[in-house]
């Protein structure tokens, strides 16, 4: 046997579960999972690694009707983070869907953010530019495993 340098896999999963706090600014109201939301953004937005929190600037709006609500949709979170091999991962447990929706402009990104923690940003996922007219936009999630999950820490 020999020692091997590594970031512990259990720690990666625990990061996703909010167990560790290296800073002093974390205030948690309880032990339940936070509420995460998903918001769509138009192609002219500039979301990315530098995004720190949800903002309605450049968020998709309704070209007609009320199919999209500012702030987006609540992410279904019925599957706790887990790990396989040395990778910790998490994926929403259901698709995101907006119905009877008309987008005022084309959109190509979804921001996942934590509405419990002051709307802090989690991740930005881009896709091919889309527009919706009086229709349904469904965003289905990748397989929840160590190779494909929506969020992975390896």
């Amino acid at each position, binding site marked *: 046997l020999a020692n091997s340098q590594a970031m512990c896999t259990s720690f990666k999963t625990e990061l996703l579960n909010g167990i560790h706090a290296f800073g002093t600014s974390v205030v948690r109201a309880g032990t339940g999972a936070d509420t995460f939301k998903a918001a769509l953004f138009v192609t002219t937005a500039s979301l990315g690694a530098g995004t720190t929190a949800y903002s309605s600037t450049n968020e998709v709006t309704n070209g007609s009707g009320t199919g999209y609500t500012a702030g987006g949709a609540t992410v279904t979170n019925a599957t706790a983070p887990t790990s396989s091999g040395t990778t910790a991962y998490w994926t929403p447990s259901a698709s995101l869907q907006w119905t*009877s929706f008309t987008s005022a402009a084309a959109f190509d990104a979804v921001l996942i953010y934590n509405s419990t923690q002051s709307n802090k940003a989690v991740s930005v996922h881009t896709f091919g530019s889309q527009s919706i007219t009086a229709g349904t936009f469904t965003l289905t999630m*990748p397989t929840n495993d160590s190779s494909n999950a929506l969020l992975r820490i390896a």
Partner: protein
Amino acid sequence: MSTTQPKFDDASMQWIPPALLVDAVVDGQARQLSVGGLECVVGGHENDDEWVSWIEYRQGESVVHRSVRMHLKKGLLAEGAAASFA
């Protein structure tokens, strides 16, 4: 889901169109149109990142209904490494 919206069937991987009426926007106004009077076009694409299928109803040159099914194939990977003291 409303019966005036196309439904994507995961088993057959095909769109099931509404039987009679479809939700539409014409000249900025929401309304329901008879599917019989519209051209229905289905398309999509696939690459390493996504699989997309869409259905459109067209009235002349105008798209009066468009629904999209977007599947994200892969999420984001953050790689964590522990520094060595060596």
